């Protein structure tokens, strides 16, 4: 309720910030279903390297993406201290393995700066923009681009 109220009055939005490989990222809180600890995943054959496998999420099959590897950074070595952000985009539910969840931010659209043009196409494809908060730089992530899609296999 408070979220809705805030949204209505300020036009702002809430984001969940997390750390991966020393960098900070954030996603819209509305797409986050839950946050849970790391449990070993079952490997999938023929999966891309960032695909850690699948785990049981209360009876549904939840694929886990290593966010770091997905962005082309160093693959994570998951420990119990790692965190899985269970996020939903459209009908798909996917888990993102991240180092830690750091913050919940309330920002207005004006706080979001466009992605700097130094970024390569790859980074630009999932970065929606950057935020400057208390001297930190936080990258706003477009989850849709991070998730696996069958229809994009041609590319």
């Amino acid at each position, binding site marked *: 309720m408070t979220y809705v109220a805030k949204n209505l009055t300020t036009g702002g939005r809430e984001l969940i910030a997390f750390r991966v490989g020393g960098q900070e990222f954030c996603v819209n809180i509305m797409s986050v279903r839950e946050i849970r600890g790391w449990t070993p995943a079952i490997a999938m054959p*023929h999966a891309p390297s960032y695909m850690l496998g699948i785990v049981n999420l209360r009876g549904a099959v939840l694929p886990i993406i290593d966010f770091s590897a997905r962005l082309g950074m160093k693959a994570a070595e998951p420990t119990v201290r790692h965190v899985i952000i269970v996020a939903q985009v459209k009908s798909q539910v996917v888990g993102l393995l991240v180092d830690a969840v750091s913050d919940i931010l309330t920002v207005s659209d004006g706080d979001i700066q466009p992605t700097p043009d130094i970024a390569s196409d790859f980074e630009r494809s999932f970065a929606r923009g950057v935020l400057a908060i208390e001297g930190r730089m936080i990258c706003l992530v477009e989850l849709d681009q991070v998730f696996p*899609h069958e229809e994009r296999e041609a590319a």
Partner: protein
Amino acid sequence: MDMNEIKEIFFQECEEQLAELESGLLRLNDGDRDPETVNAVFRAVHSIKGGAGAFGLDDLVSFAHVFETTLDCVRSNRLEPNQDVLKVMLKSADVLADLTNAARDGGSVDEARSRQLIKELEALANGELPQAAVSEPAAKPAPPAAPVPAPAPAPVVNDEGFQPVAFSFDDFEASEPPAIEPSTFEILFRPKSELYAKGNDATLLLRDLSRLGEMSIHCDMDELPALGSMNPEAAYFAWKISLKTDKGEEAIRSVFEFAEWDCELDVALAGGNAGAGEELPMQPVPFDLSLLDGDVSASSGAAEDDEQVVAQREARDEAVSAAATASNVLQMAQTARASAESAKSASPASAAQAAAQQAASAATPTIRVDLDRVDRLINLVGELVINQAMLSQSVIENDTNGTSSINMGLEELQQLTREIQDSVMAIRAQPVKPVFQRMSRIVREIADMTGKSVRLVTEGENTEVDKTVIDKLAEPLTHMIRNAVDHGLETPEKRVAAGKNPEGTVRLTAKHRSGRIVIELADDGAGINREKVRQKAIDNDLIAADANLSDEEIDNLIFHAGFSTADKISDISGRGVGMDVVKRSIQALGGRINISSKPGQGSVFTMSLPLTLAVLDGMVVTVANQTLVVPLTAIVETLQPEASAIHSFGASQRLISIRNSFCPLVDVGRILNFRAIQANPVDGVALLVESEGGGQRALMVDAIQGQRQVVIKSLEANYTHVPGIAAATILGDGRVALILDVDAIVAASRGQTLKPEMSLAAAG
């Protein structure tokens, strides 16, 4: 509940009514002449018309109205439901279904077709009317005081609304001629509780009635029990109405049009028959209202009325019991009475049966549920089963005594969960009937298009299968039926020349066999022309010109993509769906399809499908430290390979000899990329599998853990299709395991690579 929801319910009901309509017509087509069947058909159309009227679906209403009129002719024996008539009616049922679908989904309807059918229906209704009138002149003058309830909803009114009746009352011959001038009707209106339950109001009906003319009403409260024993939802009041009107009986009945199934309604002309009371035992009337003639102002004669009513009740009872001894007139009386009472007329012989049917339908009330809700429930029960297994495991690990109460309770829990699982699965089980019924329409259409005469025989349509299987069955079945009629059956001339019945038969059978449903489609046509198939295959470079193929192998060629034996592309074939699509969709259901064909005698297609797509019997195995599940249906046998049985074949292939035949060995771990090099077969277990593509393979796994039923979880929902993997499941310890797609693995071992289909745009 908003309008859309109500409309949705209406359309759902329409579907039921349409099914009822079609099955009724088909029963009639098979020679069933039970009046109840005719009534059921009539009711179906009538209900659709009623509902459609409420929603302003004019096209539907006008077509249903014409259809109903013609059906009414059948109902009142003015039209013999012979083959020709039924052909038109079956087509009309199809159009009615199209119109309903169009009204729901906004699709289009073949208007020329419906116009044509409207003409044909009207011709049937009109063409037969004069004959009926000629053959039964005695019935033409409206029988006064005759309580025969003419079919209530107004058909096309071309005879001032009086229904010719199938029998005559000689006693009444001398009575008044049918009146256009004001005449007095005696009406008995006894609502049932259903009338109120459906939102009708007796007072409103009576008010409508009062608009027709001068009316006096007497409320019959005899049935009213003492306050203590009163059921608040029951209907206790009846009304005796005397109405002086110039509108005719039809107008009176039309007031009750939407209530007619839910009340007892007698409409009779008053007067001219005061002496009828003496003949009461012979009167088929529950209440001979003509007795009230001298005393229509109800209140003053209440006591008298009661006396008479009691007398008449006795008389009526006598009449009914006398009917059992079956004098002709009384049979009619009984029929009339039954129809008045329950709106379901039935001959005495079938009255009991009809009653039993009614009782049966009352005994199994049903509800409609969203499939999503059931799926959610099934999912939860699956979780429950897993949790229960986890609990059992930890209890065992904690080493409690076997007789402890915990173990007892656990056992009970196990039993309960299993029972819940079974019951939930049963919710989704549905008879294949709706799909089979749809097929009769396909057969009709194709038969029309090809000019063939075809009879569809269905068996075992009450065989139950999971709803998801039923839904996916329609498409392949439709295609196969089209094929059977178009390619399988010969033209009537050829059939006659071959000494066969010019009418071809297509037989559709469903039955349960060892935990699967087997659906068989047999035609008595010419069988597969193997020469032609072979030639076609050679032309298409599918086989070498000198290939030596068995009959079965040739038959199986028709499952190849792009294969059609039709000489020319007709309306029916050449639509881009071949038997290969049929085969693929059957396989996607975890099923198999087989052909057996005898030249000159026809072909039989046999499909074997799992009863449900939600659970699967699997063998749990380990491969490279991964737990996998192999569908049990694919496994022929398991064996421990000995070193002497393994033979290298070329650089990387290995064969295993099983009883002197060689079978390629496939390392599952290697083919799924779980390990880089092939494991030593002697360390593992070989699963001999038979794939749909034909041919056996020995799948190498590291160890077998056991056999169990697993709940199938979709991988595609959150992930994507994984080559070589059919789905996932969750094991008793809560871990996920992958279910092997045996066919894909076998295909991969033939050289088709298991390519990772998923590669993200940004992955590289």
